């Protein structure tokens, strides 16, 4: 029954499914894992970096993108689709600043991205965006936020969440280990992100990237270069913080 109803995505199947959207969600499940953790004074994003071919330049395949000074995004799914969304979101952040003379709230930009995704589930000849995004940042009043969007165009706020490959396993881990103490302590939040990623990341430490945003400070993106990451003394090489 499904193969007759998923060509034009504007069409519902008889049992009420939008199959293209569900297939897009499958694409997300194949993407590399991303984890987001929200603390009291810090928000952290961690992504699994796929191993690059030997001859390929290991310049960071940017899976964590800065949308504005105070908002960042990590995604799981189709990289090319993500690029489009990130560009549109960046322009919207600036447009908001120009017209209302205020930086966007994290919810506003999440809503914008979600709305964009939804539009593509309801128009002719277009397929949905094959990615879920984790959006972190601080609002103007200093509140830290973490939101998740998915291909259907819905968005929800989370204390901590994961998307992409093995999301179920990682989410169970997070549910078990995310506590009030972790939330209050910056380092604990970073450690939780790393530990969560280590549950699923292949070679144990080389293929992760972590981005940290503290209130009022620019995003810091770090590489973990060591083969084995010992979480009690983390050797993090901090790259330049991006500031506009």
């Amino acid at each position: 029954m499904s193969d007759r109803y998923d060509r034009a995505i504007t069409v519902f199947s008889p049992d009420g499914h939008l199959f293209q959207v569900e297939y897009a969600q499958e694409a997300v499940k194949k993407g590399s894992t991303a984890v987001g953790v929200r603390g009291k004074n810090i928000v952290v994003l961690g992504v699994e970096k796929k191993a690059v071919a030997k001859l390929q330049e290991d310049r960071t395949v940017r899976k964590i993108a800065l949308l504005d000074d105070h908002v960042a995004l990590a995604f799981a799914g189709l990289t090319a689709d993500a690029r489009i969304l990130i560009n549109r979101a960046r322009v919207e952040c600036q447009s908001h600043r120009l017209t209302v003379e205020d930086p966007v709230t994290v919810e506003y930009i999440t809503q914008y991205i979600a709305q964009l995704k939804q539009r593509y589930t309801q128009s002719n000849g277009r397929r949905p965006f094959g990615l879920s995004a984790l959006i972190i940042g601080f609002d103007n009043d200093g509140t830290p936020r973490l939101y998740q969007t998915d291909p259907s165009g819905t968005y929800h706020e989370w204390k901590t969440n994961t998307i992409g490959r093995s999301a179920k396993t990682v989410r169970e881990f997070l549910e078990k280990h995310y506590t009030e103490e972790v939330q209050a302590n910056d380092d604990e939040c970073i450690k939780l992100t790393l530990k969560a990623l280590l549950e699923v990341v292949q070679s144990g430490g080389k293929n992760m990237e972590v981005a940290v945003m503290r209130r009022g400070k620019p995003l810091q993106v770090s590489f973990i270069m060591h083969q084995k990451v010992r979480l009690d003394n983390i050797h993090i090489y901090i790259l330049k913080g991006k500031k506009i």
Partner: protein
Amino acid sequence: MSILAYNGAAIMAMKGKNCVAIAADRRFGVQAQTISTEFEKIFEMGPQLFVGLPGLATDVQTVFQRLKFRLNIYELRENRRIKPKTFMSMVSNLLYERRFGPYFVEPVIAGLDPVTSEPYVASMDLIGCPMETNDFVVSGTCSEQMYGMCESLWEPNLEPDDLFETISQALMNAFDRDAVSGWGAVVYIIEKDKVTKRFLKTRQD
């Protein structure tokens, strides 16, 4: 009265030894009446990149805001600071987009290259024709007076303190010969590791 002389302004920029200076008057007036003596005409676009916008005050503010928009997106996409020369092209593009209904501003750009720290100054007309020079650039209602002062006072390879003296004297004596500019001045000296902003005490007329 020309639309470019409605609000009145005087801005100049000079190259020195491993530094640049940019200076402007602070008057905001409506023809003969002075409204404010604290009007900002020089805007920071990067840690060592400044743009001065003389001309119609509403366009001064709009051009700055729209320029900041484009610059922010550029820096997010490229993940690096913009070079002064590229920034000049960006300003020129923004102005030429309005070729047949232009913004009434004639910008002045001063900065140091983010990598090599080489000094850079440039100016352009209201439809974006750029002019890069090796010495100084001027723009505003008293541009002829400013050209005269700069041509006489400027010399190459001035140290930051000497450059400050030179640009201050050049600007002040030029806008003192113009009815619609003056009423205070601000001078920025941009060096590799710091930017100094100084206000000048001038004739308040």
